[in-house]
C-alpha cells in the first residue's frame, strides 16, 4: 500500500492537504521535510483532498515535501518493556533507550461497555486529611486538581502517587516545564517507583500537536495493563495545555468557537479521555489524577468548567491548601460508609461549621462586634485550617477523625455542632480535668 505523494496542496498552521486516494480517516502518514521526518494524522477527507495534522508542526514544511501514507492509525508498542521508560508525545524514546516496535496497539479505542464496569469500592489512602477525611479518593476515580498556576500541584500529584498502593504509574506530561519533568523523574527514582512507572512527556518546547497525543497514548497503555489485571494510576499534567492545543488546531481549521475560542466539542474531547478511568468487572483498574490549571483563578473558565462536569469531583488547590469549598470527591460515599461510623457526620458537620466560620470572618472584616458564637467559630476556623487543611499534615484517616472531634470539643458545646446525639455520645471526647 504505502503510496507516496510528492505534492502538498496547502499548508495552514500545522495542517497540510494532499490530493490522495484510498486514504482512511484517522490514518497516519509520514512527512519528510528538510528537518527530518514527522508523523501526521488524517483529520479530514473531502473528495480527493486529504487534510493532515503534522505532529512536528507546519513550520518548514515545503509544498515539494514527500508524504507517505502508512495504512494504519496512531499506535504505540505495548509490553512490560515500557516499564521504567520515558517517551515523548509521539511515542519516541526520550531517555536514549531503544525504540519499541513490537505488539503495536491502536490508541483512542472505543469506550468500555458500561455493563462491564463495576461500582468503585476501594479507598485510596493518601495521608492528606482534606482528601482521606473530607473527599476520599477512590480506586478508578477520575479527579483533577484545579489549581492556580504557581501552586505546588505537581508536588501534590507526586506525593499522592508515591503514597498510593498501585501496580503501575503512568505520567502523561503536556507542556510540562523541563524542571517539572525532572522533578517527577527524581521523585519516582528516589521513592524507588521508577521501575513501575512509564512516562510520556511533552515539554513546553515540543511541537504542539504532540501534546494532543499524550493522554491517548498514556491511557491506551494504561488500558492494556488494566486488562491484564493491574491497578494503574495515570497522572495527567496539565490538561489545560491539552485543551489549549486543541483550541489552537480548531482555530487554524476555522471552526466556529463556542466559548472563548474553544471548540464546541471540548466537553466530548475531554470526556473521551477521562472516561477511560474504569474498574473492570473481571480485570484491573485505571485511576486518573489530572492537573487543570485555571487561567486567572477562574473556575468558570471553559477548561475547568467542562472538566468539572466530566470528572468525579475535583481538588481545589489554593494558597498551598486543598480548599474545602469547591473540592469534592463524588465517589466518597461509596467508601466512607465503611470506614468508621463517624466519618460521614464529621465530614459534613465540620464543613458546615467551617462555612459558618467564613461568614463570621466576613462580618469581622467589616468591623462588626463578634458575638459569643462568632468567637467560637473564629477559634474553630483557625484550628481547622491549622490542623486539617495544612498540606504538611500527614496522618491516617482514623487519626484525622479523632483530631476532628478534638477540635470540635475544644470549641463548641455538643448541641452546637449539629451532629446527631448518638454519635456525640459515642465519640465526644470526655472532659479530662
Amino acid at each position, binding site marked *: 500500500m504505502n503510496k507516496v505523494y510528492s505534492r502538498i496542496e496547502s499548508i495552514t498552521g500545522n495542517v497540510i492537504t494532499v490530493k490522495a486516494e484510498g*486514504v482512511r480517516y484517522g490514518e497516519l502518514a509520514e512527512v519528510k521535510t528538510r528537518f527530518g521526518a514527522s508523523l501526521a494524522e488524517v483529520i479530514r477527507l473531502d473528495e480527493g483532498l486529504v487534510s493532515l495534522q503534522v505532529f512536528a508542526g507546519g513550520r518548514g514544511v515545503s509544498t515539494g515535501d514527500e508524504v507517505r501514507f502508512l495504512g494504519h492509525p496512531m499506535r504505540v508498542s505495548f509490553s512490560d518493556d515500557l516499564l521504567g521508560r520515558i517517551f515523548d508525545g509521539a511515542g519516541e524514546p526520550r531517555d536514549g533507550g531503544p525504540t519499541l516496535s513490537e505488539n503495536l496497539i491502536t490508541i483512542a479505542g472505543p469506550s468500555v461497555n458500561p455493563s462491564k464496569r463495576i461500582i468503585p469500592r476501594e479507598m485510596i489512602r493518601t495521608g492528606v486529611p482534606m482528601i482521606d477525611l473530607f473527599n476520599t479518593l477512590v480506586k478508578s476515580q477520575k479527579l483533577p486538581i484545579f489549581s492556580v498556576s504557581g501552586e505546588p500541584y505537581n508536588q501534590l500529584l507526586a506525593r499522592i502517587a508515591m503514597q498510593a498502593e498501585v501496580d503501575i504509574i503512568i505520567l502523561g506530561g503536556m507542556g510540562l516545564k523541563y524542571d517539572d519533568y525532572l522533578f517527577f523523574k527524581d521523585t519516582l527514582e528516589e521513592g524507588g517507583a521508577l521501575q513501575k512507572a512509564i512516562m510520556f512527556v511533552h515539554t513546553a518546547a515540543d511541537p504542539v500537536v504532540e501534546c494532543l497525543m499524550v493522554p491517548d497514548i498514556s491511557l491506551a497503555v494504561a488500558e492494556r495493563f488494566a486488562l491484564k489485571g493491574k491497578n494503574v494510576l495515570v497522572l495527567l499534567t496539565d490538561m489545560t495545555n491539552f485543551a489549549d492545543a486543541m483550541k489552537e488546531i480548531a482555530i487554524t481549521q476555522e471552526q466556529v468557537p463556542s466559548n472563548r475560542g474553544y471548540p464546541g466539542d471540548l466537553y466530548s474531547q475531554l470526556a473521551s479521555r477521562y472516561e477511560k478511568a474504569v474498574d473492570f468487572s473481571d480485570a484491573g483498574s485505571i485511576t486518573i489524577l489530572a492537573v487543570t490549571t485555571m487561567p486567572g483563578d477562574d473556575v468558570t473558565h471553559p477548561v475547568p468548567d467542562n472538566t468539572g462536569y466530566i470528572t468525579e469531583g475535583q481538588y481545589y488547590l489554593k494558597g498551598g491548601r486543598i480548599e474545602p469549598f469547591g473540592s469534592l470527591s463524588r465517589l466518597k460515599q461509596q467508601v466512607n460508609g465503611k470506614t468508621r461510623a463517624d466519618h460521614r457526620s464529621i465530614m459534613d458537620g465540620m464543613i458546615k461549621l467551617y462555612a459558618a466560620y467564613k461568614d463570621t470572618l466576613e462580618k469581622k472584616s467589616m468591623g462588626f462586634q463578634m458575638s459569643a458564637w462568632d468567637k467560637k467559630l473564629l477559634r474553630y476556623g483557625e484550628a481547622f485550617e491549622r490542623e486539617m487543611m495544612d498540606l504538611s499534615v500527614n496522618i491516617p484517616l482514623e487519626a484525622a477523625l479523632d483530631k476532628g472531634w478534638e477540635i470540635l470539643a475544644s470549641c463548641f458545646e455538643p448541641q452546637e455542632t449539629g451532629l446527631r446525639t448518638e454519635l456525640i455520645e459515642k465519640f465526644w471526647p470526655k472532659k479530662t480535668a
Partner: protein
Amino acid sequence: MTKTTGTVTGVNGNMVGVRVQGAVSMNEVAYIRVDEKRLKSEVIRVRGDLVQVQVFEITKGIKVGDPVEFTGEMLSVELGPGLLGQIYDGLQNPLPEVAEKAGNFLEPGVYLDSLPRNKTWDFSPVAKVGDRVQRGDLLGTVPEGAFSHRIMVPFGLYGAYTVRSVRPAGAYRIDEPLVELEDERGNLVPVSMVFRWPVKRAIDCYAERLRPVQPMVTKNRIIDTFFPVAKGGTYCIPGPFGAGKTVLQQVTSRNADVDIVIIAACGERAGEVVETLKEFPELVDPRTGRSLMERTIIICNTSSMPVAAREASVYTAVTLAEYYRQMGLDVLLLADSTSRWAQAMREMSGRLEEIPGEEAFPAYLESVIASFYERAGIVRLRDGKTGSVTIGGTVSPAGGNFEEPVTQATLKVVGAFHGLSRERSDARKYPAIHPLDSWSKYKGIIEAPVVEYGREFLFRSAEVGAMMKVVGEEGTSLDDYIVYQKGEFLDAVYLQQNSFDPIDAAVAPERQKRSYALVLDVLSAEIAAKDKEDARQFFYALRQKFLDLNGAEYKSERYAALEAEIRALVAGRKKGVDPRGARLIERLE
C-alpha cells in the same frame, strides 16, 4: 422499489458526505460499509445528490468511495413486551448482550435485537374477529412484571381496520403474527407483539390531552411541599457541576410515585449509570414488592460514547415513555443532562457549517427543546383511561450561569424550576435547590397558602441575614433576629434532606405534612428570649431534636417521644401565637 445506495465523498469528525443514486429522506437510516463492518448513520442534510449523514460510531477507518446503503426507514425503536429492565444505548442496543457478544469494549458496528426473540409471552386476546379498530387500540395483553402490557394496533397503521383473525390465548414469541387486520381496501396486515416507531415523532394515539393537576410525589420534602411536580408535567434542574443534579435524579428514580421510570443518561458519566444498574435489581419497589429494575428502563449514552447517538438517546427514551403511557401508566422520564444533548446538536450544526446562534448553539435550539418537553403530558386514551409522561431534565450551564441558551430555552417551557445553587452545595445544604429562586406552577401535597406561610419566613430570614451582613448582629433587633433563626431552622430541618440516610432519604406525604405542621408550630410561635444568644441556643437545641426526629422511623416510639419533646420545648418558650399561622396549621390537620 430498489434500495438507494451511495458512496462516501468525505469525512469530517462524525459527519460523512455521501453521493447518492436514488431517493433519500431526511432522518433516514443509512449504513456505511467499512471492511467487514456496517456503521449506522442518519441523514441530516440533503442537497441534490449530496447527502450528509451523522455516524453513530467512531468514523476512523472510513475512506472516500466506501459504499453506503440506505434503509428507507427513519431512525426508530422497537416497541413490545420486554422493554422493562433493559439497559440500552442511545440506539436501543441492549448493552449487556452487546458485552456478551463483543466483550469489554463497544466495538463499532455491533447492532443487536432490542427485544429478545427467543422468549415467549402469555398472550390473552381481547379483540374479536369483526371488531373495527384503529392505531393504538387494544388487541390483547401479556403480563410484563407487575403490569398488564397491552398489545396494540401498531401506531404506524393509519386508517381503519377490521379484525380478521386472532390467535387463541397461549405463549408466543414477540415476532409471531397474532392478529390479522384488514384495511379498507381489503389488504391483510399481520400484527405481532412488536412494531417500530420513529423516535423523532411524538406518539399521538389518544383522545385528548389533559391538564396536569395531580402531584407526582418524589418523597423529597422541598419538592413535594415547595416546588411540586405534576404527573404529566415538566421540570428542570439546572445547576453548576457537583451541585447535586444527578443525586437528586437518582433518589427521584427510586422513590417517585409512578409506574415506570426511564432514565436517560445522556452524555454524562458511565460510572453513574453503573450505580443504578447494579443497585436497582437489589432494591424493592414498595408499590409492587418487586425489584426496582422491573419498573425501570435505562438509556445509556454516556459522555465518551459517540455523540450522534447521544443526540438520538433522548428521543429513544421519550418514545419508550410514550409507549407505556399508551397502556394507561404513569411514566417518569429523567434526562441527565439535556445540555449534553444540546451540545451534540451544536457539534453537528458546526460541522454542517450552519450559521451559529448564541454560544455557537444552532438557531433552532429553542424550538427543539420546546418540542422535546412538549412530549410530556397526561392524556385520556380512547378507552377512557389516563396515562402520563412526566419529564425532568437536568441542565448543565457553562460556568454555572443560568443566563445561557440551554437554561433559558428550557425555563421557557417547563412547569417547575429546581435551580441548584453553588453556595448551598458548597455549604453541604442538600438537596441544593435554591428555596428563593426556584418555582413551580403545579399544585403540591400541601395547600398553597400553608406553603406560602413557610416561604415568607425564608424570604424575611434571608432579608434579615443580608441586613445583618451590613449592620452586624448588634444592629439587628431581637425580633428580626428570631425571624432570621426561624428561617434558618425551616431550612435546616425541612428543606435539607439527607439522601444517604435510610429514613430521611424518602419521606412520604403523610409524614411531610405532619413534619411541616410541627415546623409551623415553631414558625407561628412568638418566642420568648432574653437576648440573641439565648434565642440562638434555643433554636439550635430545637434543630438538634428535629434532626434526630428526621432520622427516626415514622410513628415509632422514638418518633413520638421526640415529637413530644419538640412540642414541649416550643411550648416552654411560647408567649403568644400568630393567629394566621394557627389557622393554617388547623387546615393542615
